[in-house]
């Protein structure tokens, strides 16, 4: 439909969505950039905010947390995902349901799950006390946040890896085995490269979510200085708009780049499979 009439219809159909996008995304973002430059330091406020030692520490800690969460989730979600895609046994459907259920839990609920596991009255503390040790409590810290983000991200990795593993060609593995490759070699040289686009895609989404998530940290404690919490306190308590705006834009750029990587990896995966 490349006729002028066709183009016009296509344009008109996109128009309402474009207006929503302009009114609630583009315009606010422009206002945010301007508001950040209206502080006492003017545009230099951005430089001051981004050079602030506390902000830089927070950025480094958030990056480290997100990388650790991504690696842990790829292992803890990837192995069950691959396992469930290639084995049939009684109870399998139940495990798939449990492993994918928290996919759309909000951050606050994830935070509550962490409190139930590792909080003051949490299961881990009770078990550790029963075993004669101290009551282990780590929910209200970076470790609790790590647990929460891994919890939140496992379902996505499981789903992505399962979908990708079901598309792998079993003949490739058979060929490798018939040529005498040991199981570990088959896994490393045949299966893992086949899953690579899925792992990159799910990993990038996990990373972006861990960088930008707010609800879990908010539920656990306001003292966890991850970047979203710093933005929130700068905006509400510090009323430091330059810092809040600058860090928001920085955070948005990081998560956008990670997700762009995810999409291009997924695209390459589709191309390779088709």
């Amino acid at each position, binding site marked *: 439909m490349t006729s002028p009439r066709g183009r016009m219809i296509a344009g008109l159909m996109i128009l*309402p969505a474009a207006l929503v996008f302009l009114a609630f995304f583009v315009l606010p973002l422009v206002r945010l950039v301007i508001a950040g430059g209206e502080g006492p330091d003017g545009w230099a406020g951005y430089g001051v905010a981004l050079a602030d030692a506390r902000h830089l520490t927070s950025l480094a800690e958030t990056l480290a947390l997100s990388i650790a969460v991504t690696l842990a989730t790829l292992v803890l979600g990837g192995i069950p995902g691959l396992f469930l895609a290639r084995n049939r046994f009684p109870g399998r459907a139940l495990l798939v349901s449990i492993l994918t*259920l928290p996919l759309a839990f909000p951050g606050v*609920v994830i935070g509550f799950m962490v409190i139930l596991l590792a909080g003051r009255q949490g299961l881990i503390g009770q078990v550790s006390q029963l075993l004669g040790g101290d009551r282990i409590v780590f929910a209200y810290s970076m470790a609790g946040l790590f647990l929460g983000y891994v919890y939140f991200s*496992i379902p996505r990795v499981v789903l992505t890896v399962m979908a990708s593993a079901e598309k792998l060609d*079993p003949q490739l593995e058979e060929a490798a085995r018939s040529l005498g490759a040991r199981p570990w070699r088959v896994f490393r040289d045949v299966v893992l490269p086949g899953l690579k686009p899925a792992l990159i895609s799910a990993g990038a989404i996990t990373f972006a979510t861990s960088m930008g998530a707010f609800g879990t940290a908010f539920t656990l404690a306001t003292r966890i200085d991850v970047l979203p919490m710093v933005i929130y306190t700068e905006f509400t308590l510090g009323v430091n708009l330059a810092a809040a705006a600058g860090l928001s834009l920085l955070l948005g750029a990081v*998560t956008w780049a990670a997700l762009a990587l995810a999409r291009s990896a997924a695209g390459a995966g589709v191309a390779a499979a088709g």
Partner: protein
Amino acid sequence: MRNRTLGFWLQLALTLAVSAFLGVPILQSMLAGVTRNIFTGVWKSGLTLDWVGQVLTLYWPAILLSIEIALGCLVATLLVGVPAAYGLARAPGRLARLAEEALVLPVAVPGLALALAMVIAYNGWGGFRQSAWFILAGHVLFTLPFMVRAVLAVMASSDLATLEEGAASLGAGFFRRFFDVVLPNCRSGILAGALTVVTLSIGEFNLTWLLHTPLTKTLPVGLADAYASLRLEIGSAYTLVFFVLIVPLLVALQLLVRPRTAKPLSQDPS
């Protein structure tokens, strides 16, 4: 049954452990929500629906508002998103791909940053800023890409152009084609998009926390409030109420999105 290898059992053990990690706190919270006193335990204190009742009296307005916003969000994303997906599918060339990329941007930026920008931009608009419409606007912005992508994926995989050409050659006008050919062929995508939109809207917190006012609290805002200030049983009961709302949606989505036939494996891959 084939003989299972050691690798099978190790992987099964890890899968079970990870499932327990995800499942146990969910069960814990559901149980705590109906336990009379969690500190003395469920066996000694017994079961009760008192906490659920308290949650419903305390937070009914928040729960109701969340359902209303989710339904409003669904209507808006259907009216705006489905035509947009069609436009993107039919518009050729680079401009359409660029528009597609742009529309997905609101998902790529953390909700907190989006909400901050919206609050600053609409601060002067008192009536709108204070109302639930403001939250709805944020939710529509955030969920619209999911609707567009779900519908676009189905449109891309079905040969829409040929179907429409066929209909056009039989004399069907644009509206006739859109409602009688395009929409029925995208049913599965629209349904998947609708379930995703409602699920995301009901649970949305990252945006909503900055957008809400004391008079426009949503369900997750109330959850944060209950976790922070009320006893564990009430937080758990509230979480239970949330699960009752959200789990049917998630299960429906899983059944819908799951690939229809999994390839049977010819041999044990270990």
